[in-house]
């Protein structure tokens, strides 16, 4: 295994007496698709928030390319190249798809605040670059047809893709997808699986996802980390995870049934 791009080291979060997750440790290799699974309330979302800087771990740390990112505010984590998309498809509702993606390029802006205000040459050339890059991303995700649609009018599947486009606009190294398949039918899911693969294959991204849809997870993941009651109970390839008795017990409460497929 090459040097990990992301290292989760003994990450723990306690809210008063409640422990959201505890001593979670795993590495993520560059260009890997890694899924974090676990029953509801297992602490998966907290883990994502810890990685993206929304929640500071009580103990433990998160390293990105060897540098500690836990404890940094989200915009700094994003600036370094770790970006989170959202479970609730929350985007800038009163903007068009294209405007959304353009605004999301903020990170790459070189102009100063005063430059924005006075419309400096730098600010204008930035805007042009962003528009070009936004169109590129829109094409990549196959959203051409809805480019000028107001985001508030979009159906679920397109919203999810738009959320991904917003994440991509920051040109991240690592993208965290929060339940990308939730609420999708089989066809939509399969299309999204293809899209996530292309993120890795064509854009060289490392993808971390939290997901409940087991068939999709098994299909897409290089490796899977399973969390239950805030603790990591298993880590391995999809085949290993499917055969792991602790995982089966966590999901079904017995060893008699197999999960997923």
């Amino acid at each position: 295994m090459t040097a990990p791009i992301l290292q989760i080291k003994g990450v723990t979060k306690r809210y008063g007496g409640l422990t959201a997750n505890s001593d979670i440790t795993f590495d993520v290799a560059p260009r890997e698709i890694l899924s974090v699974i676990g029953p509801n309330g297992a602490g998966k979302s907290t883990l994502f928030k810890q990685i993206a800087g929304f929640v500071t771990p009580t103990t433990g740390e998160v390293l990105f390319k060897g540098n500690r990112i836990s404890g940094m505010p989200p915009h700094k984590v994003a600036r370094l190249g770790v970006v989170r998309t959202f479970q609730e498809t929350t985007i800038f509702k009163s903007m068009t798809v294209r405007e959304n993606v353009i605004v999301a390029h903020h990170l790459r802006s070189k102009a100063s605040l005063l430059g924005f205000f006075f419309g400096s040459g730098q600010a204008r050339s930035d805007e042009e670059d962003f528009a070009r890059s936004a169109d590129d991303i829109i094409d990549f995700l196959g959203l051409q047809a809805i480019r000028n649609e107001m985001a508030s009018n979009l159906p679920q599947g397109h919203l999810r893709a738009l959320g991904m486009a917003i994440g991509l606009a920051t040109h991240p190294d690592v993208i965290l997808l929060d339940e990308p398949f939730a609420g999708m039918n089989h066809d939509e899911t399969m299309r999204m699986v293809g899209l996530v693969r292309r993120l890795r294959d064509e854009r060289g991204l490392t993808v971390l996802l939290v997901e409940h849809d087991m068939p999709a997870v098994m299909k897409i993941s290089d490796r899977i980390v399973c969390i239950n009651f805030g603790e990591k109970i298993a880590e391995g390839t999809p085949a290993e995870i499917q055969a792991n008795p602790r995982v089966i017990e966590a999901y079904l409460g017995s060893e008699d049934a197999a999960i997923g497929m």
Partner: protein
Amino acid sequence: MTQSRLLGVGAFLLGVFVLVPAFIHLTGRWDFYYTLTSVALLSVSAAGVWLTFYIGRINIGQGAYALLGGYVSAILMTQGGVNFWLTLPLAGLFCAAVSVLIGVPILRLRGVYFAMVTLVLTEVARLTALALPITNGAKGITSIPLPGELSIFGLTLIPDFATLENPKLAFYLMAAALMVLTYLVLWRIVNSRLGHLCRSLQQNEELSASIGVNTAMLRVLAYAISSFFGGLAGAIFVAISQSIYPSSFVVSDSVNFMLYCFLGGLGYVFGPMLGTLLLYFGWDLLSVAREYQLLIYSGTMIALMLILPNGVLSLFDRKGGSK
């Protein structure tokens, strides 16, 4: 800028700087100068409130900054002998600085919680003005000189107001010019990337942070600009009335600033300007209803909010869009 927009701006400027004074001269309604000056200044203050709305915060504390700006200007003039024209930016900057100190902790609050804290601010400002020796307590500061001469290298840009035949007209022109400038700045902010980022903040702060926006800084910046406008307006009010008391700006003023924004439309840069005009004149016109004035006024407000939740300007908006 499109031609029609340019034409609109031209017509607006013509109206404000030529037609209104001409109308007042013809009709002899000199009292309108005071009313319209007030409208212009209140709308400057309301512009600030509108900007905080634009980042998704309900600001019911603008009166505090108007009061603060007024006192800064008054104290600098009466005790420091500073020229009024210099106290004007100083009052604004002082308010901006104070708002940064206050904003850093309270801007973390959202929704009604932020609104509640700002509501208290005006009262805190009033009580502080009552208690401090420098503000002269309940007696306030009076006999503040009229704005002096503004000259650069011996060239007189603005004459001493005390030597003018018609200081009312001068105040009106000053307030109108400031209003135009304020809304120009506001329009520019909203239509630049800065405005896009503010809107992203209004719609979804977490997503905004995760695309790399320093949300905390942006919020404080918007609040500081907002307070700058508040301080500016306050300072000019003081110059007009030549006095300031702790009750010069009270909670109801802060609430009014917010209502101007609501009525005009939170999605429109020029919303607060229109809202101020309508509400201020509306209130005056309703005085014929005597004891029913407040009842009709508030009833109309409620009705308007129900019928036109996006403000009066949404009437003219075909797309129901953004600007």
